[in-house]
């Protein structure tokens, strides 16, 4: 990573954290839906996404990679609008933005990523797919099936596994007996790499190598990014029921934002003024996004029947009439 890229990375990381704070505050006021923050995982999310070229590469997300999608071209105000329940054409993924919808049926996105990468390869496109999953999602059968097929087809896909130590309340040790998630790649015939997921430089380096490998036709890579979820699973969760506060405190000492800021400061690339300026500018950008999001049209009953099929069936049209005339 060049200094310039690193400064860009820090800005995305600060934006992620600021967005989390804003969205959680809005959720507590009843103005935002259930939200899963990226707190503590910013180096993983940003370092991986910055290895991609948004013009030709694809992101197949799980749900905790908001700024990765924004960096890839999904406008922040649209994501804010979705959070605020304005789920219409005005908040969907724009044409030309190579991002798939977020996925809450965990690991179900992985076979999609494999198929997408396989299809891009069949069409001789110079594209790579990056897909996200967690330590919990890796227990799903879809994880195995997707990686296995990707290996067979040498699909240009990077499986980016954020091991944040928790699947809601289930700790990593109850998820698997394997000493390393990265080891699993051996079973699929492609490399697995473990990386310190709180070190944005290290994450970017392994992601960049994996993307280059995929683009060169050498097939998939599994990256295990070892990090820590420094928050709740989502806004309905209560970690005080299951998390040892010592673990959180220990993780806080490895906070990925603090680490990169210390590094930049030591290189003379960061100062208190710069810190205030960047934090201020990302907050302003987020506020502007929420303001634009509030202007998107609200949902209406007939939206229920939109985008189910290219052409709605006669029965659906009758049901739509019932809903809209009542």
């Amino acid at each position, binding site marked *: 990573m060049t200094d310039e890229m690193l400064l860009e990375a820090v800005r995305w990381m600060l934006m992620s954290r600021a967005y989390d704070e804003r969205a959680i505050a809005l959720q507590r006021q009843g103005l935002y839906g259930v939200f899963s923050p990226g707190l503590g995982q910013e180096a993983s999310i940003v370092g991986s996404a910055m290895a991609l070229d948004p013009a030709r590469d694809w992101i197949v997300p799980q749900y905790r990679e908001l700024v990765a999608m924004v960096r890839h071209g999904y406008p922040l105000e649209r994501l804010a609008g979705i959070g605020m329940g304005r789920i219409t054409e005005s908040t969907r993924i724009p044409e030309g933005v190579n991002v798939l*919808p977020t996925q809450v049926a965990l690991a*179900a996105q992985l076979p999609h990523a494999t198929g*997408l*990468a396989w299809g891009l390869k069949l069409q001789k496109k110079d594209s790579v797919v990056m897909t996200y999953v967690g330590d919990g999602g890796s227990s799903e059968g*879809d994880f195995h*099936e997707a990686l296995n*097929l990707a290996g067979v087809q040498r699909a240009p896909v990077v499986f980016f596994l954020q091991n944040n130590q928790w699947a809601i309340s289930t700790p990593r040790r109850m998820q698997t007996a394997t000493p390393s998630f990265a080891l699993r790649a051996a079973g699929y015939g492609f490399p697995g790499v473990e990386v310190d997921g709180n070190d944005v430089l290290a994450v970017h380096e392994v992601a960049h190598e994996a993307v280059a490998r995929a683009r060169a036709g050498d097939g998939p890579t599994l990256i295990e990014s070892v990090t820590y979820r420094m928050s709740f699973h989502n806004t309905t969760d209560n970690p005080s029921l299951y998390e040892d506060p010592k673990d959180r405190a220990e993780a806080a000492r490895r906070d990925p934002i603090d680490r990169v800021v210390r590094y930049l400061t030591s290189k003379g690339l960061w100062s208190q003024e710069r810190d205030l300026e960047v934090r201020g500018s990302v907050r302003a950008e987020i506020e502007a996004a929420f303001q634009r999001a509030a202007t998107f049209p609200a949902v209406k009953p007939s939206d229920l029947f939109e*985008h189910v099929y290219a052409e709605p069936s006669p029965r659906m049209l009758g049901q739509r009439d019932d809903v809209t005339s009542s």
Partner: protein
Amino acid sequence: MTQRNILEAINNALDEEMARDPRVMILGLDVGKLGGVFRATSGLLEKHGPERVVDTPLAEASIIGASLGLAISGMVPVAEIQFLGFTAQAFHQIGPQLARYRTRSRGRYHCQVTIRAPFGGGISSPEFHSDAVEAQFVQSPGIKVVMPSNAYDAKGLLIEAVRDPDPVLYCEPDRLYRLGRMEVPDGPYTVPFGSASVVRQGADVTLVAWSAAVQLCIAAAGQLSADGVEATVVDLRTLVPFDVETVVSAVARTGRCVVVHEAPLTAGFGAEVVATLAKEAFYDLDAPVERVGSFDVPYPAATLEAWYLPSVERVVAAARRCVGA
């Protein structure tokens, strides 16, 4: 004039669509050199090449999930699930993912994917190979459910499925695959979805069915006719979309109806047909509507299946109850 059985009609439809559209590809278990366990894809690997006819790992969820991704990349996948009963291993990728992707993306993405799946009893298959689970997919809005009963429809409905921008589950009646040939023209033609076919006209009772049960109803109608009871036979052809109009108008003419399917009776799609008739044809009915299905028990061993499946005798008996004869 080309005579084809259902299997040959399916093979011919796939071959012609692959020749017409370079995006069309086939993936599934044993679809390559073997040509599928029933040989539906025979010769297609040799003709269209290994990038377009692909044997996959033995893993149904990834066959469907990868088809979704392939479709988004710009390909037109025709996925084969070796037997419809094995969609259980892929259901989470069909109902919640493939069927809903257009909705989930608010129309940004759609999945032009066809899933072919043989099903049905009467061929002494091993466990799980015969299950008629089509109604499960009717409860998954976003996918169409297509049930051909003869070779002409099999080709036309399959071409329609491949060209449909939305996902289609195309269920093949394996018992009928090689049971006789009929005129199936060379060259592309389509049979539209949501258009039931009246395959026999009769004034006394309407038999409604789909897939292999249509042939059962035609045989039953022949027996009934010998006793002076004339049956109309309606072949739904597709369950989603459901052609309410054709069924209701046929039943309005006869005032009596029997619905026949291979799935277990309770909450089979026959229940939807009967509920629809109760609303749309109530004042035209002269007798309670009868249903003939398999029993509400797991699909049995092959040595028991003759008692489990609907038979000509059970259809004839239900029709006689219905007409009071």
